[in-house]
C-alpha cells in the first residue's frame, strides 16, 4: 500500500447532535483501499451514528466526506451506493420468500418494466457467488438458507452494486464459530480485491483475528486509531471505557437487609441456563454482559412477561411462578424497561396519567379516579425527581429522554414497589440525567428497596452496583464484589470470554 494512494474513505470533523445528546464530536475517520478497520466503542459511543452518516441513513451536522480522494455529498442510501458504499446491517434486509438472486438484485432486476431477464439475473448472481467462493443455489428462496448463508447473500447484494467500501455492523453476532471462519475467509478475499471494510464487533478476539487497524470511539470522540499490532486487548478495553463519568463512585455505606429476590437455577429454553442470583433490600446488584447474552429474557422472566421453564424464583422468601406483569406488580416488582418509548410510556398521554398507570386502583374511589389525589401525587413526584416539565399535564412524548425515564421510574415509586429492575436505564440519555438516575437508584436502595441494574454499559454497572453478575451466552459467567475485586477490564473480559488478555 503506497502512502501516496488516496484513502478509500476520508471523513473529517464529523459532528452530529440529537436532541439532548451530542452523538459525534468532530470525528475523523479514514480507511485505505483494502484495509479492514475495526470500529469499537461502548453502546452510545457513536459507532452507529458514524456508520449511518457514511451510509446515508442519517444526515451529518458538520464535516466532510471524501471517497477515493474526491469530495462527495451523501444525503441518502442511494447516494452512498452510487459512491460505492455498501452496508450490511445487523438485522437482515432480505425478503424471505424471494430467491437469492432476486434478493441480490432487488429493485434493480435486469429487464424491462414488464419482463425480467431471468437468465441474466441468475448468471449475475452466480458470478457473485463464485467471487465469494460460496456455494449457494441462487434459485432457492432466502428463507431456506442458514443465517450464515443469508449473511453471504447480504454481502453479495452489497457487492452487486460495485461496492468498494463495505460496512459490517456486528456481522458475527448471530454466527457460530465455524460460520464466522467462513465469513472471515470471504472478508479476506474481498480485501485482496481491494475492497475496504469497516468491521464493527464487540468480540475482541475476532478483531485481532481479522482487522488491520482499530478505531475507538468514546462519548462521541475518537480516542484512538492504531494499527492492530500496536494494541492489546487490555489497552483496547481501557480506551473504550475511559474514566469520565465514574471518577466519583456512587457507592454508599452498605446496610443490606432481607433477601428480597432469589433465583435458583433458573432456566428458559434457548436463552437462559442455570441462572442463580440474589438481591437483598438495600443493595444495588448489577447484571452485565454483551448485548444478547440473555439480559432481556432475564428481565422479562423476572417481571412475568415471559415464563421460565425450570428453576425457582423467590420473592421475599416466597416461591412464585410468575405468569403476568399484573402478578409481578402485586408482589412489589417494578420494571424500568429497556425501550422506554415503546415499553415504558404512553407517549400521547400526560405525565400524570403515566405516573398512576400502575396504581390506577389505588388512586380510584369506587370507579372514579380521584383527580385531586392524582394531581397531588404527580406534583410530588415531579418535584422529588426534578422532572423538567411545564406541568403534570404535559404529554410524556414531548419530554426529553432523561425526563421520560424519570416518569417511568416515578410510576413505580407511586406504586411503592420494593424490587426495582432497571433495564438499560440510561440508554440514549445525556450525562446530567444519567447522574441523577444513578443517585435515584442509590436512594431507592438506601430506602430499603432491592435494586437490580441490568445493563451492558459496564462502566455504569461498576460505578453503581454493590455486587455484579456477568452474563455470557445465557449463563452467569462470574460474580464479583464491585468494591473489592472487580476491575473494569476483568468485567469486560469475563463478558467477552477472551483468555489471557491481562
Amino acid at each position, binding site marked *: 500500500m503506497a502512502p501516496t494512494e488516496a484513502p478509500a474513505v476520508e471523513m473529517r470533523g464529523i459532528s452530529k447532535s440529537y436532541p439532548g445528546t451530542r452523538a459525534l464530536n468532530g470525528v475523523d475517520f479514514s480507511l485505505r483501499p483494502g484495509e479492514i478497520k475495526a470500529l469499537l466503542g461502548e453502546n452510545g459511543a457513536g459507532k452507529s451514528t458514524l456508520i449511518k452518516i457514511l451510509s446515508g441513513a442519517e444526515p451529518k451536522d458538520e464535516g466532510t466526506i471524501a471517497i477515493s480522494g474526491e469530495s462527495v455529498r451523501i444525503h441518502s442510501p442511494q447516494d452512498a451506493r452510487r459512491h460505492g458504499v455498501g452496508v450490511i446491517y445487523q438485522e437482515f434486509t432480505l425478503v424471505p420468500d424471494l430467491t437469492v438472486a432476486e434478493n441480490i438484485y432487488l429493485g434493480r432486476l435486469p429487464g424491462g418494466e414488464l419482463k425480467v431477464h431471468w437468465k441474466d439475473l441468475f448468471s449475475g448472481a452466480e458470478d457473485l457467488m463464485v467471487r465469494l467462493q460460496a456455494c449457494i443455489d441462487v434459485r432457492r428462496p432466502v428463507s431456506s438458507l442458514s443465517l450464515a448463508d443469508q449473511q453471504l447473500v447480504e454481502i453479495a447484494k452489497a457487492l452487486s452494486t460495485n461496492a468498494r467500501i463495505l460496512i459490517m455492523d456486528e456481522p458475527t453476532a448471530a454466527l457460530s464459530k465455524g460460520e464466522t471462519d467462513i465469513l472471515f475467509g470471504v472478508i479476506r478475499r474481498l480485501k485482496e480485491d481491494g475492497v475496504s471494510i469497516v468491521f464493527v464487533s464487540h468480540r475482541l478476539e475476532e478483531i485481532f483475528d481479522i482487522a488491520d487497524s482499530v478505531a475507538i470511539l468514546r462519548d462521541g470522540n475518537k480516542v484512538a486509531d492504531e494499527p492492530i499490532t500496536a494494541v492489546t486487548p487490555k489497552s483496547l478495553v481501557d480506551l473504550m471505557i475511559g474514566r469520565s463519568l465514574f471518577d466519583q463512585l456512587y457507592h454508599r455505606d452498605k446496610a443490606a437487609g432481607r433477601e428480597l429476590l432469589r433465583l435458583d437455577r433458573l432456566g428458559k429454553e434457548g436463552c437462559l441456563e442455570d441462572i442463580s442470583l440474589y438481591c437483598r433490600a438495600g443493595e444495588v446488584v448489577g447484571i452485565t454482559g454483551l448485548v444478547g447474552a440473555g439480559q432481556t429474557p432475564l428481565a422479562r422472566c423476572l417481571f412475568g412477561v415471559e415464563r421460565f421453564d425450570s428453576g425457582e424464583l423467590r420473592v421475599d422468601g416466597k416461591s412464585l411462578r410468575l405468569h403476568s406483569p399484573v402478578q409481578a406488580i402485586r408482589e412489589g416488582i417494578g420494571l424500568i424497561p429497556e425501550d422506554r418509548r415503546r415499553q415504558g410510556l404512553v407517549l400521547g*398521554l400526560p405525565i400524570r396519567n403515566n405516573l398512576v398507570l*400502575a396504581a*390506577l386502583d389505588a388512586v380510584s374511589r369506587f370507579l372514579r379516579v380521584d383527580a385531586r389525589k392524582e394531581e397531588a401525587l404527580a406534583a410530588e413526584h415531579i418535584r422529588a425527581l426534578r422532572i423538567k416539565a411545564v406541568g403534570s399535564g404535559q404529554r410524556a412524548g414531548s419530554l426529553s429522554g432523561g425526563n421520560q425515564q424519570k416518569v417511568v421510574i416515578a410510576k413505580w415509586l407511586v406504586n411503592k414497589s420494593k424490587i426495582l429492575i432497571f433495564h438499560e436505564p440510561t440508554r440514549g440519555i445525556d450525562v446530567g440525567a444519567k447522574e441523577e438516575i444513578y443517585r435515584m437508584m442509590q436512594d431507592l436502595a438506601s430506602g430499603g428497596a432491592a435494586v437490580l441494574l441490568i445493563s451492558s454499559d459496564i462502566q455504569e454497572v461498576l460505578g453503581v452496583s454493590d455486587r455484579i453478575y456477568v452474563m455470557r451466552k445465557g449463563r452467569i459467567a462470574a460474580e464479583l464484589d464491585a468494591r473489592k475485586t472487580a476491575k473494569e477490564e476483568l468485567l469486560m473480559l469475563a463478558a467477552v470470554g477472551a483468555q489471557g488478555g491481562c
Partner: protein
Amino acid sequence: MNFNRQTLPRFLVNNGLFVALILMAGYFSLASPYFFNFDNFRNILVQISIMSLIAVPMTMVIVSGQIDLSIGAVVGLIGALIGALIIKASWTFWPAALLCLVAGVLIGLFNGYVSIKLKIPSFIVTLATATSFGGVGLLLTQGYPITGFDDSFAFWGQGFVGHVPVPVIFMVAVYAAGWWVMANTAFGRRVYAVGGNEEASRLSGIQVNRVKIAVMTLNSLVSSVSGILLASRMTAGISNAGDPYMLDVIAAVIIGGTNLAGGSGTILGTFLGVLFMGILRNGLVLVGVDSFVTYIVQGLVVLFAVALNTFKDIAKSGRAS
C-alpha cells in the same frame, strides 16, 4: 394539553369541528327558512339519536386501538330477533328485550375473544362475523320484515316524555354515561392507555385483553339497544335495517377527532361529529340539494376529517421527537 377536562376555548383551538358546525348551521339558517326552528332541531336529534348511541362505545373501541365493523349487522339481527320473539313466539316485551341484550353481550364477547385468542385484528374478525350475523338475521326473518307490533312497543322508538322523544332521552343518557366513563374512571384511563401503547400498558399491569374485550362487549350491547329502538321506530323487524349504521357511526367518530390508530378521542368530540353529520344531512335536504348528492358531500367530509387528523398527528410527532 389538558386532556381530561377540555375547556371551551381550548376545544376551539384544538378542534375546528365546533367552529365548522356553527358556520354550517349559520349558513343553513340563512339559506332555508325551515332550518332554524325548534321542530327542525328536534327532528335532527331524532334522526341521529338511534344511530348515535353506538358512536359512544365505538369511540371507546377505536380509542382502544380496535374497530368493530359488525354493529350494522348486530342492529339488524337484534331487530329481527325481537320481532321473532314478540311476533312469532309471542313473548312479552321485557323478557324479549332482555334476551336481546344478552345476545348483544355474547356477540361482543365473541368478537373480542376471537380477536385476542386467535390474534386476528378486530377489523377482520368483525368483517367476517358481520356477514354471519346478517345471515342469522335473514334466517330469523326469512328475508321479510316482521310486522304486527302493538302500540306499546312503538313507544320506545316513537314516543315522547313531555316534549322529548324517547330515543333522544336514550341518546342523552348514553352520551352522559360515556363521557363520565372516559373522562373520570380508571376504566376510561385504561382504554386510553391500551390504545396509546399496548406494550407499555401491559408492562404497567393493565390487563390489556380484558380492556379490549370489555369495550367490544359494550359496543355490541349498545348496538342491541339501538337495534330494539330502531325496530320500535319502524314497528318492524328488518334484518338489514342497520346496514347504513356501520359507516355512519365510524364516520361520526372520526369526524369527532378520534384517532383511527387508537390512543386519543373524546366523547364530546364524537357528539359534535354526530351532530355535524345530522345537521349536514338535514340542511342539505332543506336547501334543496339532491339527496344523492348529499352522499357525495358526506364522503368528502369524512375524507377531509381524516386528512385533518393525520395532519395533526404528523405535526404532533414532529414536535415530540
